[in-house]
């Protein structure tokens, strides 16, 4: 095949589908009770040096409890799929957990601004990066889910984003036109927060799915955190709603308000006050360390964090905001 151009950054993950298939051949298919705690799931499935992907969209439907647990477990040298990341990336930078990042969107917090600490980390030169785009990472996950070594798109062409990526421009065998070949990526582990799951990992998501359907099918291991656990019958009564089936899932962790301080569609809005505190604390590294001790390192559980942030009173307010009760 004629390669017209190629990006100069290294691929962090092996794009060979047969190696992935060998892994998936051994992945258990039994419908067993996969419930465990946040800590157990991190101990078991998120070792130092693994390549991690987070579901949701930055500060929307994110698995905050697992991210906190990764920090408390002092995980180091992680690879990270940086698609649509915001508060999740801010957390992983706060814990100095990252070594390699496939970048589509990092550091930024959308309309909230930019994370000063994540910026310090990424400007230090200690973290290896490879550039992509949100759609490019979506295509890479889709290719992995399809069991092929690359996907095809027409983005990135002509830009430095391509030059600093690990993509290759190839000539189409049918039209002769240039297309971008985007290598499949099978993350070692994905963590996805959902509205409902049964004990086996059959999941419902309400609202947008972002790239989580592709992600759940590409990742070798999947940890689900769920707002609530439901009986298996709640799944079987409406199979149309199942978006992630159990055989993709390795751990199920029940975490009510698990996307806090992020938004969870139809449940609670984001806590803008707390997210603003993060930004403020990050300006001074000393202050930030105290802030992290208070909210993460000296906290033993996600419930305790929720209490620290205002507990049920705050959560009731965020539920009203989400439902637009007073509007």
């Amino acid at each position: 095949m004629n390669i017209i151009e190629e990006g100069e950054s290294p691929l962090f993950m092996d794009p060979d589908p047969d190696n992935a298939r060998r892994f998936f051949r051994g992945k258990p298919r039994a419908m067993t009770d996969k419930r465990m705690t946040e800590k157990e799931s991190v101990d078991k499935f998120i070792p130092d040096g693994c390549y991690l992907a987070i579901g949701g969209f930055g500060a929307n439907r994110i698995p905050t409890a697992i991210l906190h647990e990764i920090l408390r477990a002092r995980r180091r040298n992680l690879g990270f799929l940086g698609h649509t990341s915001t508060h999740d990336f801010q957390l992983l930078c706060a814990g100095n957990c990252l070594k390699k990042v496939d970048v589509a969107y990092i550091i930024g917090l959308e309309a909230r601004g930019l994370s000063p600490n994540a910026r310090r980390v990424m400007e230090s030169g200690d973290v290896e990066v490879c550039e992509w785009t949100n759609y490019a990472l979506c295509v890479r996950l889709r290719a992995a889910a399809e069991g092929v070594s690359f996907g095809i798109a027409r983005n990135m062409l002509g830009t430095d984003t391509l030059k600093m990526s690990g993509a290759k421009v190839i000539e189409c065998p049918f039209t002769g036109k240039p297309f971008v070949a985007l290598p499949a990526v099978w993350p070692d582990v994905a963590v996805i927060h959902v509205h409902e799951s049964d004990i086996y990992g059959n999941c419902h998501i309400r609202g947008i799915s972002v790239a989580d359907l592709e992600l759940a099918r590409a990742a070798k291991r999947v940890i689900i955190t769920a707002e609530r656990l439901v009986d298996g019958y709640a799944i079987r009564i409406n199979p149309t709603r199942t978006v992630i089936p159990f055989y993709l899932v390795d751990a199920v962790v029940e975490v009510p308000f698990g996307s806090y301080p992020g938004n969870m569609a139809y449940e609670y809005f984001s806590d803008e006050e707390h997210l603003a505190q993060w930004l403020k604390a990050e300006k001074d590294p000393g202050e930030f360390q105290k802030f992290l001790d208070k909210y993460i390192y000296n906290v033993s559980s996600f419930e305790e964090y929720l209490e620290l942030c205002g507990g049920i009173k705050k959560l009731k307010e965020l539920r009203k905001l989400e439902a637009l009760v007073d509007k």
Partner: protein
Amino acid sequence: MMTAAYNKMEMMICTAARFLEDGTTVAVGTGAPCAAAMLAQKVNAPNLVIIFEAGGLAPLLPQMPISVGDSRTFFRGIMAAGMNEMMTTCCRGMVDYAFLGGAQIDKFGNINSTVIGDYHKPKVRFPGSGGANDFASFCWQTMIIAVHNQTRFVEKVDFITSPGYLTGPGSRETAGLPAGTGPYKIITDLAVMGFHPESKEMMVESIHQGVELQDVLQNTGFRPIISESVKTTPPPSDTEIKILREEVDPCKYIIGRK
């Protein structure tokens, strides 16, 4: 009739809104682009379909979203899908406009939102493409809303994150980008700029009321083409300002920005 007093942000949003035709599709981010699309829906383009990259399609936006993936982006929407659905709609050629921003923009409309300085030792690291490169590649007409100054409008961007006309006429097509796509309008607090049909260089098309051509040139880091028929940008109407303030952004999240 007296025209209402308005600030620069309001001017940019009202001007941008007028470029959105009825019955079209637009991909937007948070902030000014979203405000422009909401205003257009209420004034000149009631059937404008707003698309959010995380999966929200055609919401009845109850307020300004904070994130392109928050629950407002599919509030009473037509569909709550995912990124693949929205991006492949762009890939197929069914999205007419995209609104982008950036730290640097050059005369061919190339955008930098990745790094300032050397890539390997950046002076400043920015978020990267996000979905911007995708939109700039696939949507038919890309628009940029940005404050006009010499730091932003530069002869050459440090890093091309998202493609404009790259190095000039024909270069998008040579690179393999879909034919007939590219930057359309740049809306700043001083002027509206388009692109010369042949050279694909940025061209001043209209200048806002109270602004001199000299102001535009002094705030642009390269010499833009001046259209032979350069006009005064029509100021926002009372109706536009009223709707913008009362219905689109009553909390002044965007129009209150300095």
